[in-house]
């Protein structure tokens, strides 16, 4: 917890300058502001809504010059006040700081700064003058020059232009971090406003390039992502969130043919020594993403996949009406284009062990095993050998195999799917397409509690799936080894718990029978225990998933890292891909330093995350309503029997229109530290 000597945040003034520092009570909401990295004191913090000074003797003007330089560098240059104002303010502040401090120049700078804040088009210009203006409004005297010894000129223009500098001036070092609510919400930290900008600017290749900085599966993500970014989108406060996902799909589809030519082994600039080989276990989203980043860093990478095709859960678990298989396959090809090899039909624990990999000379291993074992219901009458009973994962896999032409299944009659997640929705909608006459979803909580995307639930409903909320299976009924029905029990809601979720208990005497031919248990998945054995040195955690360090993803065994569903439990595509990226960074560090280094950007994210610096604000001025692009879909009556992709692509004109809805809520955060922030991979 840090003690604020003086500062302003959200208009609230903190002024403890006339007190002794030890008398100032640390602010609990500023937990984590003491040190940036080990032993490196945070002297000041500047952000979109004000600033804090934590140490005596901080050169506030210097901190503001650096912040202004970053703002000028980040200005997109479209609107007049931000383009010109940020550069002018930067230069004038630098002059005040270095050459002459005169009140007339200060007043002119202030006038320009107010103009930038009041008249800029987007969030960057509207917010980047706040630290300066709050200092001018409340702590003007702190900007006057200290009568200290002459300042060292710290490389003037160079630093003005670069902004992101770790140069010292007066024993102050700065690190800047530019972000937006959508970026922070994204597990992979995709620079969302930037890729939307590039669409608007007419540079779709660049737009896709921004996405490809984080993972190779842009078209896949553009179809099935759960869109944490859209939940965080500030446009929600005006009308509806920007169609971030649909724009991603648009650029990925548009550039589909040419982007294949962008990758080749020759394009990797830095080659790592040949012996630094890395094995990636699992060609799912986590594994592919990890392999992609390691290949880009120049490592020799081999991928081992248990099944006969890439994609993991994205291939077998996501039906083709949401994600056509060729889209996924095309994106997995990037691994080969970069010189990586994928070995198929190689299952860890069955065909080889972790020790085998180490023995074959791999210096690091990434485990992206997935979580592909389904869980049964655990109710009376449930026998795994019953005909008509299966887990959701197994069912989706069979559907997938069937569509691939590998042995078909027939489905008819009444199908009951148990569960409320996206897998349950995928099972229900796939069951319709496989020929079920009736599909029922049974979920023990209420509709609003369902973890599945609302769009998925609605699509299933439109296609005729019947929902039974606050209902649980009590017993499986069967005759001669075949399912004949399921006994359902109504559930009662209790009081919400600490997480806001309400417990449910069975209502007495509510049992009834639903006749059916098939029961699909889509209530959860686990890691295949056979893949890891005792001697591997990798441990399972409490919930039956692999144990790894949350920051570095390293397991108990040195050189072995884990990520994706096998580490987090069944989760989202984007989280798995983010894990792959994180593990690649950790492996790179491990192979070169024997340890995972400090990552300044991650640290910065934690600081602003904990401080809730980005938490909801209001939108001050009226904004024109421009409604979100409507994605055309196949008619429910037609599509419910087809595995053709349901959502249609948007047109170029629609993409330009949708891109223009982005409010560009960029914000700049700066820490001023005592010593330089370690220069490691960002």
């Amino acid at each position, binding site marked *: 917890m840090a003690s604020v000597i003086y500062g302003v945040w959200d208009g609230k003034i903190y002024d403890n300058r006339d007190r002794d520092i030890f008398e100032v009570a640390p602010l609990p909401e500023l937990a984590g502001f003491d040190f940036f990295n080990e032993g490196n004191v945070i002297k000041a913090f500047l952000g979109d809504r004000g600033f804090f000074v934590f140490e005596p003797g901080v050169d506030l003007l210097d901190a503001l010059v650096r912040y202004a330089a970053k703002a000028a*560098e980040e200005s997109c*240059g479209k609107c*007049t006040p931000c*383009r010109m104002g940020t*550069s002018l303010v930067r230069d004038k502040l630098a002059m005040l700081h270095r050459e002459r401090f005169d009140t007339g120049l200060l007043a002119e700078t202030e006038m320009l700064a107010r103009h930038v804040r009041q008249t800029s088009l987007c969030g960057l210009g509207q917010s980047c003058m706040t630290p300066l203006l709050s200092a001018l409004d409340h702590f003007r005297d702190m900007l006057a020059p200290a009568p200290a010894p002459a300042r060292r000129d710290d490389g003037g223009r160079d630093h003005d232009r670069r902004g992101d500098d770790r140069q010292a001036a007066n024993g102050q070092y700065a690190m800047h971090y530019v972000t937006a609510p959508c970026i922070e919400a994204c597990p992979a930290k995709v620079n969302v406003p930037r890729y939307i900008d590039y669409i608007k600017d007419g540079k779709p290749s660049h737009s896709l390039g921004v996405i490809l900085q984080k993972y190779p599966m842009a078209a896949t993500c553009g179809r099935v992502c759960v869109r944490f970014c859209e939940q965080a989108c500030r446009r929600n406060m005006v009308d509806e969130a920007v169609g971030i996902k649909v724009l991603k799909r648009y650029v990925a589809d548009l550039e589909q043919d040419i982007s294949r030519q962008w990758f080749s082994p020759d394009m990797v600039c830095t080659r790592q020594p040949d012996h630094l080989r890395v094995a990636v276990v699992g060609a799912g989203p986590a594994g592919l993403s990890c392999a992609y980043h390691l290949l880009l860093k120049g490592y020799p990478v081999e991928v081992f996949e248990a099944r006969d095709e890439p994609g993991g859960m994205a291939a077998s678990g996501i039906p083709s009406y949401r994600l056509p298989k060729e889209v996924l396959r095309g994106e997995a090809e990037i691994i080969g284009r970069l010189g990586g090899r994928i070995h198929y039909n190689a299952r860890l624990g069955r065909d080889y062990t972790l020790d085998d990999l180490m023995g074959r000379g791999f210096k690091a291993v990434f485990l992206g095993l997935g979580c592909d074992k389904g869980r049964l219901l655990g109710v009376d009458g449930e026998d795994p050998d019953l005909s008509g009973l299966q887990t959701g994962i197994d069912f989706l896999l069979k559907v997938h195999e069937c569509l691939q032409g590998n042995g078909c299944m027939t489905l008819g009659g009444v199908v009951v799917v148990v569960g409320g997640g996206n897998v349950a929705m995928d099972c229900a909608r796939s069951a319709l397409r496989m020929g079920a006459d009736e599909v029922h979803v049974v979920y023990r909580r209420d509709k609003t509690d369902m973890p599945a995307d609302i769009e998925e639930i609605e699509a299933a409903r439109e296609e005729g799936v019947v929902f039974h909320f606050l209902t649980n299976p009590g017993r499986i009924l069967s005759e001669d080894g075949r399912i004949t029905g399921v006994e359902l029990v109504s559930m009662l809601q209790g009081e919400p718990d600490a997480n806001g979720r309400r417990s449910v208990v069975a209502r007495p005497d509510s049992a009834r029978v639903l006749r059916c031919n098939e029961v699909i248990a889509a209530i959860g998945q686990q890691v295949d225990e056979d893949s890891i054995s005792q001697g591997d040195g990798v441990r399972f955690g409490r919930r039956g998933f692999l144990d790894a360090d949350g920051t570095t993803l390293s397991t108990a065994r040195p050189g072995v890292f884990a990520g994706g569903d096998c580490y987090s439990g069944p989760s989202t595509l984007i989280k798995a891909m983010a894990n792959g990226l994180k593990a690649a960074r950790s492996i790179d560090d491990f192979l070169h330093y024997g340890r995972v280094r400090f990552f300044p950007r991650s640290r910065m994210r934690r600081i602003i995350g904990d401080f809730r610096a980005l938490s909801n604000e209001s939108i001050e001025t009226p*904004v024109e309503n421009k409604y979100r692009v409507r994605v055309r879909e196949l008619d429910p009556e037609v599509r419910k029997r087809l595995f053709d992709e349901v959502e249609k692509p948007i047109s170029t004109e629609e993409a330009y229109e949708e891109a223009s809805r982005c409010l560009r809520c960029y914000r700049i955060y700066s820490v001023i530290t005592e010593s330089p922030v370690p220069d490691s991979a960002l």
Partner: protein
Amino acid sequence: MHDTMQATINGTPVTFQENDTILEAARRGGHFIPTLCELSDIDHAPGTCRVCLVEIIRPGSESPVMVTACNTPMEPGMAVRTRTSRVREMQRLQVELILADHDQDCATCTRHGDCELQDVAQFVGLRQSRYTRPDWTRSRPRDETSPAIIRDMGKCIRCLRCVEVCRREQGVDALVFTGTSLQADIGMRNNLSQGASDCVACGQCILVCPTGALAERDETETVIDFLDDPEVITVFQFAPALRVGFGEEFGLAPGVNVEGQIITALRTLGADVVLDTNFAADLVIMEEGYELLGRLKEGRRPTFTSCCPAWVNFAEKLYPDILPFVSSTRSPQQCFGALAKTYLPEKMGLDPKRIRVVSIMPCTAKKDEAQRTMFRQDGARDVDVVLTTREFARLLKREGINLAALEPSTFDNPYMAEYTGAGAIFGTTGGVMEAAVRTMYSVVNGRELERIEVEALRGFESVRTATIDLGGDIGEVRLAMCHGLKGVRAIVEDVLAGRADFDFIEVMACPGGCVDGGGHLRSKKHYQPYARKRRDAIYEIDRQMPRRQSHENPQVQRLYKDFLGQPLSHLSEELLHTHYIRRRTEIKQTINDIWRDITMSTLVHSEFDAAEPAASRKRKE
């Protein structure tokens, strides 16, 4: 849904509907708000210049907030003030900031006197320019690689109108927004130069550019050199659309035919021979009409017209597969040029080497066209210089000629100056088709159309279709007329995909046709305001002509009799037909190239980031 709501502007009540902007409501109520980037004719309000500041007080609030009128919606009960001292001060500062990185060499600027930035500086009462930094403008590019269009980014104010027109009106989408911060401006797709890019040189971007950032290449100096050189014989031609869109520059009413004054002006300049492109338009109908009838008999369909050079560029650069369907007949300008250096000197007893052909065109792409290598004889260009309408106006002013004060005169050349009504209507969308139908009908049936004005072919929709019975062994033909490249793109894609059923397709790249060409006079803060007046004037010329079918042009008949023989003769093929080149640029790049070019990047692989050479990596090795 469409409830009328109330608010006030400067204390006066105004009514508005949902999502009306403050600017729209203010304009309706007669309250002037200075604007710069906004262009309502193309529904463009990107909100980038930030000049149209007003103060609003929202109901329930006391403190005024500064917003831009162009993209802020009206709200019930809102009080808008457009001219408080704070508003005026901030509008002034905004324009001052725009000037800070604007190349202010106004006296030498091509847009001198016709500049919307100069206007807005006056509107806001700007009296100083404190922040001007020449070093900020000098580093921005000036692209002179196109024969037609000069792009000078030191003068760009980032209004994005050009991008909008190229993208939304024309559907070419060759322009992109590029760079950030002070380096932000307009570039060509894939970082190409203007010349090598997908730009088709239609010039519609120039019509909307508020400053001198986009302009035609000025060639008035060359023309004055020609006029001054006693050895040179100058031969002038001017386009069908020129005469109906030129008077307004000299204070005459828009849409008035000033053909006679133009002839006088050229003679005053000292032109040796003054001729008319309309004559060549009649000739094109003969060649293209016979070519089309031949192709129809061979069952080759459809045939696209070829007189629009921006369309030819579009086909060659964006859809080379369509080229076999484009008529081989040269444009009127180039037919004229080829004859002006062969037939004309033969008839007039002149030395062809001394002849210099100057065209005056409402078109920037004609400059491009005149430079094509196939339009040369013995290394000399058929058309030596093309002046756009704007340059012609500049030329007259440089020579002190006031068109409005001139007495009209008439053509006096017996070889290449006479025209029919069919040649006259070439300047508007549908005109080429109508002229062709008149002559083809006559060729097939041996008699002329009952109604010479074919209303079915006229109109303003960007793609129009019609079926006409040509009779004889040809019968019904399916026709399409498209103007504005966005509609053209749709029809080209339909043809390539086998979805279209047409025999003859007229294409004009500029919306409206040549009467609204990218080389014509531009109008401040408006886009094509005189489209209808100019078009009406052109049809009026047709109506007044004694002969209204190209094959009736006696000078064309004489040309065939004395020189060419008949349409599609060997000599015709040599002088009046051409071929096309596939010019699609294939872009080869890697993801690294893209990553290096991405600004404001959050790249995780520092080794790909040019701005940040992998410090840690290098130290290690």
